[in-house]
């Protein structure tokens, strides 16, 4: 399985996304990815709906302000991981009740779901590292975000 840091790129990292509440977060994140050419418009529409369906199944907050929304679509040909830091935390259901400000969005084709499950589990494990979360919240650039993730993956190989 590829490292999380290898699957992210600057185009897939969004800073200081404005969001008044969580219901607008994911559509805004997907729209930004469409604007950046990471997704096309059709993929963006489908993904927005699929993410909403998944959230209706159960909240994807894992605690410590981290949310991992995910949905898998035939129209997305390769595994996709994107990261967004919200300008301000927003209320979102999670095991510890902490508001959310760090979002790891996962998507890809349905036939790769076993790999996606492994990546989801990896992110759940890595976000227990408080130093990484602090670095992500203090990062001033996409490069610093990537550096924080490279660092945590080295420390928790």
């Amino acid at each position, binding site marked *: 399985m590829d490292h999380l840091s290898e699957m992210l790129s600057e185009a897939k990292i969004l800073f200081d996304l404005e969001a008044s509440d969580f219901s607008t977060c994911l559509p805004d994140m997907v729209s930004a990815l469409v604007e950046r050419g990471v997704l096309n418009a059709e993929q963006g529409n489908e993904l927005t709906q699929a993410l909403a369906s*998944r959230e209706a*199944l*159960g*909240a*994807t907050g*894992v605690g410590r302000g981290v949310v*991992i929304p*995910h*949905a898998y679509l035939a129209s997305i040909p390769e595994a996709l991981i994107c990261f967004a830091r919200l300008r301000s935390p927003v209320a979102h259901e999670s*095991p510890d009740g902490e508001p959310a400000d760090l979002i790891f969005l996962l998507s890809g084709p349905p036939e790769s*779901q*076993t790999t996606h*499950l492994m990546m*989801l589990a990896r992110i*759940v494990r890595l976000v227990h590292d408080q130093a990484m979360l602090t670095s992500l919240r203090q990062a001033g650039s996409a490069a610093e975000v990537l550096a924080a993730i490279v660092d945590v993956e080295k420390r928790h190989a």
Partner: protein
Amino acid sequence: MPETRAGRELIICVLNETDYLHDVLTAFVEAGVPTSTVIESQGMGRILSEDVPIFAGFRHLFAGSKPFNNTIFAVVDSSQTTKRAIELVRDVLADVESQAKGVIFSVPVLEFASLSRERK
């Protein structure tokens, strides 16, 4: 005194089709398994997809797992007994229609001791 006897093995069987527990234990007896311990257990997939919300979307990947299963432990004296036990267990479950009936495997036993008082 703990015994070190080459060839002793621990058979572990995780049985999802718990309705067939008696048939599996009967197969063990036929294979020459002297005794075994049965515990009620739960599969990882069931626990994660039902109890941990982040994994809820992956329930279908764990579709074969039942709410509960049985784990059977048996110490046997030889790999022949293990092989025979596996053959017979697979035979009793052969006609069971199921995506995931369970698994059976063995590991070597390095030391073994009865906890019963030794007779003089």
